[in-house]
């Protein structure tokens, strides 16, 4: 339940951002990460960005997440 997924910020509009994860886009709140810029990667939890991370980190976390997610879908 505390899983967090990395995503890339593609657009920012006030407190909201459009993010892309694995080709899906979604609108999320960036109130908890006010420093975030377009092009940054963030960790998403319950519709909120909870941390800004760098690109390489994001890829590694995404892979781990995909593995975990695939395992849970079995």
């Amino acid at each position, binding site marked *: *339940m*505390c*899983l*967090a997924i990395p995503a890339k910020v593609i657009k920012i509009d006030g407190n909201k951002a459009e993010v892309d994860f694995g080709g899906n886009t979604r609108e999320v*709140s960036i*109130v*908890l*990460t*006010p420093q975030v810029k377009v092009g940054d990667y963030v*960790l998403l*939890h*319950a*519709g*909120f960005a*909870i*941390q800004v*991370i760098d690109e390489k*980190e994001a890829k*590694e*976390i995404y*892979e*781990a*997440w995909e*593995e*975990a997610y695939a*395992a*849970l879908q*079995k």
Partner: protein
Amino acid sequence: MQPYKNKKEYARYLLDKLHEEAKRPLTVMEVCGTHTVAIARSGLRELLPETIRLISGPGCPVCVTDDLDLDLAIALSRQKGVILATFGDMMRVPGTSSSLQEEKGRGADIRVVYSPTDALTIARENPHSQVVFLAIGFETTVPAVAVTIEQAIQEGLKNFSILSLHKLVPPVMRALLEDPDVRIDAFLNPGHVCTILGVEPFRFVAEEYGRPCVIAGFDAVDILEALLMIVRQQNCGQPKVEIQYRRAVRPEGNEVARAYMDKYFVPAPAVWRGIGEVPGSGLQLREEYADLEARKRFSIKVEPGKRVKGCACGEILKGLKLPYECPLFGKACTPMRPVGPCMVSSEGSCAAYYRFGRKKAGVVR
């Protein structure tokens, strides 16, 4: 892991080092449900040196929700004009005599949401109903709920409230360390809880109790690396809080998120399923915002029902038993027909063992 060609090779190296260096018995509790899943799935337990024992702790917010608190949520969902919004994981958790799923089947208006802000949307769209958000979750989730409350206040939404069942991780770790029945030599700390909290709230584990505490990421290599860090701390007799999961955890955590938590919530006693009441391990809304608490808005009383019998979740959440030591495991209790919450949530210890460790549990050939 630079010198290694790939993860597999690095994992091999870490395992070799663990076998070489872990000479003394070491019981490590993983406090996070996601770790429980990763460990069960990768079959790590089998590969570790015999000196290392991994036990699963109270790391899933769904599993630790007390059945009487669930009864309260169910009672709320039965109120006329109430829409209950909840994360999907809570739907099948058994209360003392029903579950939200069953209530929904009987006509209660219960909606599964992905984010607490979805509950706000429901409130805006249904001005004549009262929308109650079932606020469960550890520190990872609380800031999102705090922001949602702020938004409700700013918009003047009068038909939104929360049932705060939030839980805090450091106080329950302290309670486990104080429990004379429980033996824990070190902790694998929950990665995303620490994304918010940072290292400071965990220092007491090393400083007061002399136990290593490593914040770990979520794949098997992360966990192996964290275990090696723990073994090395033990061997040199210098327990501390270390971060293995540097990809997502900064020492200072997320200060903005913590400020939101503090603005709206204060610590309060909370009951953990199977563990009991732990002081300061829950959160309630600050007095100024107390009218957003559903307990207050609806003044509902539930008669204490009979707790689920025969379920060993309590002992499992304390690390005293492994799931297949519960007599109901895989027999009366399966993910399709869960008896206890540890079998409901995909991150519950029993569900993780059932899914990935059936063979070892002797349930299948």
